[in-house]
């Protein structure tokens, strides 16, 4: 097990390195140096001045020197300094990461425990009757909608019908938990709804598959009630693949969080990334991509370990 985790970590490190190379390569693909795009050309900046700025930012060095010095800094926990605000990127990133993770975690809870598993359970119990059809159609419709549009429609419905308006400044849950929840519940639900659509279908199919197995028949023959068979025997086994899926969904939720943050004006990594992209603040872009990538790589390893723990038939590292 330890060897397996170690091997996965090393492989994950390689993937993260590749991700850095990809972003770095893309930035070097665009014509002209970053500086010529940063500085307004209409201002009539002299070529000497441009070269000076390039040297200041270290952009006059060959790309491999830039890359390796950046990587060495990252290993020391230094993600560089924002070109625009001159604030260390770590200081910009960490508070925003907290917002994004809270949003993703809340929507993961909503999508799995509040909506996904109960929905799948209902659909499986009433298989091929109207509750099943309703759940299936609803999940298919939800999967067909862009996350941000769902968010906009939520705002529209809640603001016009219920007189609710999104608060303007973000409040940390440690500061004022209630205000934070009021702010996060709508974006988290919009995001969680989309995540739930996949989980509902998966839970339903998984339960139906398990219900057809021999041990369920044995349980029936012992005279166990249908409810006990479903909740006590079928559900625990049916949920094993769902747990994996829910973990993989976290990546999707993180991606969706980027746009949802924009719609609900939440100060998360997504908005930081979008802002950094429009300002061509590349140290920030690099850091955002790398952080989320590393988070997801670690999460995937965790899911595999959890999977092996939940299902003793699975042996890791073979």
């Amino acid at each position: 097990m330890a060897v397996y985790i170690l091997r996965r970590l090393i492989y994950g490190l390689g993937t993260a390195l590749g991700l850095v190379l990809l972003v770095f390569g893309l930035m070097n693909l665009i014509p002209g140096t970053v500086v010529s795009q940063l500085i307004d050309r209409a201002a009539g900046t002299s070529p000497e001045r441009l070269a000076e700025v390039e040297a200041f930012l270290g952009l006059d060095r060959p790309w491999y020197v830039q890359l390796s010095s950046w990587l060495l800094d990252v290993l020391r926990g230094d993600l560089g300094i924002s070109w625009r605000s001159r604030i260390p990127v770590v200081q910009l990133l960490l508070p925003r990461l907290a917002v994004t993770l809270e949003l993703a975690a809340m929507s993961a809870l909503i999508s799995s425990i509040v909506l996904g598993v109960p929905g799948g359970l209902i659909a499986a119990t009433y298989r091929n009757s109207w509750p099943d059809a309703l759940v299936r159609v609803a999940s298919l419709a939800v999967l067909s909608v862009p996350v941000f549009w769902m968010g906009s429609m939520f705002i529209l419905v809640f603001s016009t019908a219920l007189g609710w308006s999104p608060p303007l400044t973000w409040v940390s849950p440690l500061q004022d938990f209630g205000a934070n929840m009021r702010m996060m519940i709508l974006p988290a639900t919009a995001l969680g709804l989309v995540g739930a659509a996949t989980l509902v279908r998966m839970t339903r199919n998984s339960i139906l598959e398990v219900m057809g197995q021999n041990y369920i028949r044995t349980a029936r023959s012992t005279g166990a009630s249908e409810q006990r068979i479903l909740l006590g025997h079928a559900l625990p086994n049916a949920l094993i693949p769902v747990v994996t899926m829910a973990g993989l969904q976290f990546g999707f939720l993180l991606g969706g969080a980027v746009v949802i943050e924009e719609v609900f004006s939440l100060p998360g990594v997504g908005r930081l990334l979008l802002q950094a992209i429009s300002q061509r603040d590349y140290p920030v872009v690099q850091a955002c991509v790398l952080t989320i990538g590393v988070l997801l790589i670690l999460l995937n390893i965790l899911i595999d370990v959890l999977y092996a723990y939940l299902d003793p038939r699975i042996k890791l590292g073979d």
Partner: protein
Amino acid sequence: MADRPVRNDTERSTRSWVVSIAQGIRDEPVLSTGFLIGAIIVLIALVPQAFATHSPRATNALAALQGPSFDHWFGTDTLGRDVYSRVIYGSRTSIMIAGSSVGLALIIGATLGLISGFIGGFLDQLLGRIMDIVFSLPPLLLAIAIAGILGPSVRNAIMAIGIVYTPHFFRVARSGAIVMSARPFVLASRLIGVGNRRILIRHILPNVSALLTVQTTVSLAYAILLEASLSFLGLGVQPPNPSWGSILNEGRPFLQLSPWVSIFPGLMILLSVLAVNLVTDRLRDRWDTSLAQE
């Protein structure tokens, strides 16, 4: 069946396709509905001028932000442009971007995947690692990063979405190629001296095409959503050109004042993605796609 009336051939062939379509609709109502909606949307995308009531770019300051009416079915935007006509013309851009990017991913991903699975070895390892890197980020985030760094334009949006979905096709084609190249008929053709390229194209490709078709429809649905997100964030189609996402972007500041600008393009996205999803769902059930799990 001995007492079946004998019909002449021409009568039978003209009737048979009408009957078979009718039968198809009866047997596959879900698939047919999906196909029908999809076909209408593709038609709209091909000849928007036949459906639009106004020019998608004609501004009219006097008619700004009007609600839906007989003249403007979906209302008007801030510049007084007809939202219905913009949505109709936007279909062309949205479908074009989604289609081209999935086509790009299919061609690159499937080709590399087939070769990688068939040849194996170092090349397979290398390509697999590269695809894992692309896979490590959520699609939307990666597309935002790529389109954002390359700069907002239609071409870059197509590239971004294409890159994001290439690994999906790669994996499907690769696993198909691995399973198929171990089958006796492939070994037999290799034994009688059939070349690698011919085996790949004539024997392996046809056998993974069902899997690739399902993957194409799945990706098409996601690509439509992804284009909408990119354009909504200002990283795809640029104003004044309409696409479903860019109209939503323009409508955003007026969400509460004139919600119709935001509602109708979204419904159009819902309809088209739903159509694709309906088709995908049925294709998955009908075709044995268990190969992907082997």
